[in-house]
């Protein structure tokens, strides 16, 4: 500082003023970002590192013991972990594509309706707004064998329906059905994409004699495919954390209560609805195997991160475009 003031008068003053302005600007950025900077550090950065640390320990909230790789080794022989992974995999590989396809079909249908399109759009979207817990309770009741209205109607029509949430073979299809009912989120982004397809392309194709299927196959599908990919990847990430519906369906179907101490193992019937996040919850907060739960959390992190990176690559192009 002293050397600077000792030099010629005009230039250094300009430089210090510039430095001050720059520092002022930097402080301003910090001030605006501060809530998130603190939040990111406290509620993401720290717990992520702590998860790694706890994964090498045995911890039940009272006694902490370093156990090295024991938790990791346990994972390989853990049948329940395997089962929960397979259940989550079932949902990811079957429910996600079904939702995307059904969402696309519904969007395509809505795009073609000229009269009443707005009303139908609202009705198709409505189930997505129903809170997941309420929707699940309603579904278990409506499909309930013997007393459920849908089961009753199917009975009258002579269509045999499975036991859904009381049958290990049908509980996951029941959850998939619930996912299809609440397809609104996927449908609405696909509808926007379908409506964005330039009309001239369709008109040109119609002049060419392309039928509805050909128009869909050669014009709609290629144009909306980036959005389809987006819906699929976000769908996978959401389904990796699939918890609420599976937990509530099992609980309501089994008639279990949530009173502390009376909690039963999740996954009714027969572990068929035990998803990976549910297993993590069970290990961490019912069995209080905090260390082992952290191993499961890191595994979930690795898989979710993989799909997040896929998604970020899609984001990248437009984030760059807007950064200028």
């Amino acid at each position, binding site marked *: 500082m002293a050397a600077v003031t000792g030099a010629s008068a005009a230039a250094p003053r300009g430089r210090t003023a510039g430095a001050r302005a720059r520092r002022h600007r930097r402080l301003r950025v910090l001030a605006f970002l501060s809530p998130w900077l603190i939040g990111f550090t406290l509620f993401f950065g*720290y717990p992520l590192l702590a998860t790694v640390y706890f994964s090498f320990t045995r911890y039940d909230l009272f006694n902490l013991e370093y156990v090295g790789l024991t938790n990791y080794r346990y994972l390989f022989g853990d049948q329940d972990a395997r089962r929960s992974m397979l259940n989550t995999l079932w949902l990811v590989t079957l429910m996600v594509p079904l939702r995307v396809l059904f969402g696309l079909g519904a969007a395509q*249908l809505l795009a073609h309706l000229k009269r009443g399109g707005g009303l139908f759009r609202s009705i198709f979207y409505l189930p997505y707004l129903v809170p997941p817990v*309420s929707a699940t309770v309603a579904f278990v009741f409506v499909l309930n064998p013997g007393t459920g209205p849908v089961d009753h109607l199917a009975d009258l029509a002579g269509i045999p329906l499975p036991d859904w949430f009381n049958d290990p073979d049908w509980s996951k299809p029941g959850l998939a059905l619930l996912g299809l009912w609440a397809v609104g989120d996927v449908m609405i982004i696909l509808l926007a994409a379908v409506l964005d397809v330039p009309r001239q392309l369709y008109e040109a194709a119609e002049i060419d*004699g392309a039928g509805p299927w050909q128009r869909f196959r050669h014009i709609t599908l290629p144009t909306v495919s980036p959005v389809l990919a987006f819906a699929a990847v976000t769908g996978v990430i959401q389904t990796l954390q699939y918890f609420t519906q599976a*937990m509530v369906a099992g609980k309501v179907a089994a008639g279990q*209560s949530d009173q502390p101490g009376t909690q039963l193992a999740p996954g009714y019937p027969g572990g068929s609805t035990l998803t990976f996040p549910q297993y993590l919850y069970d290990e961490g907060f019912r069995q209080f195997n905090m260390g082992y739960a952290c191993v499961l959390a890191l595994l979930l992190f690795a898989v979710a991160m993989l799909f997040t990176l896929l*998604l970020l690559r899609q984001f990248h192009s437009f984030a760059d475009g807007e950064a200028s």
Partner: protein
Amino acid sequence: MTGTAARALTRTAARALTRTATAPAGGRPRRGPGGPRGRRALLWVAAHAVAIALSLMFLAPLLFMFLTAVMSDEQTLSGDLWPAHWQWGNFTEVLSGDMARWLGNSLLYAVLGTLFMLLSSVPVAYALARFRFRGRKVAFVLVITTMMLPPQITVVPLYIVWARFELTGTLWPLILPLLFGDAFSIFLLRQFLVTIPRDYADAARVDGCGEFTTMVRVVLPMARPALAAVALFQFFYCWNDYYGPLVYAKPDAWPLAVGIATFRAAHNVEWNLTMAATLLTVLPVIVVFLLAQRVFVQGITLTGVKG
């Protein structure tokens, strides 16, 4: 690409040829029931039939929920579809129980959570949209990453910390973090704020406004639809949240979502009361959405974005 174009071209040519061959010279093509208009009408009917059928399927669970909610307990087990007599008292009976406390907890979580989220996320989104600084892109990517990653990843250490502060058992471990920005809201707001022309903010700055004043007085009023949207999403998120309260809250602090899930077991399988309680959880969300749809539209027309 060129291959497809070439194929399309040859198809056009072939089509043009066949048309001249079959169409009667000078005459307009006949539009019988099998013609293009007939087929179009058929498609119209088919599309609407499918749409109506789908609508019925989408609405049926809600309708059954309502019809069951006003039945007597015995009738719910009969498989009847229509209530024999309308038992409106089910709703008041449900509300006189634990439901009132759950409702209070849900409102506390959703209202405070939304308020805190707005206070903390708006400046962050503003900075990411307006300021140029080193690490801006990295910050944005980190926001998207935290938005996508499952909450289960960090839940164990966070629980341990909240337990040390003796806040487990309450909803505060879910409400307080919202004072420090919510990734999804930051992302959404930032996407909206970058679309507001810089000129407005620059004009305010020329008038001698500081950055904070510019944000509050000039930019935020224009962002009202986006603010309404993120507030609504946050409110719904808190209202619907089951995982968070299940981990942290004791029965005293349970919100509706957790209460509803245990309702059937606690009430000896009284489906009519269970459905009444469930319906009361669904209604506010639908009402808020229907009201807010108007707020969105109003917000868009009120902003100066259109010039």
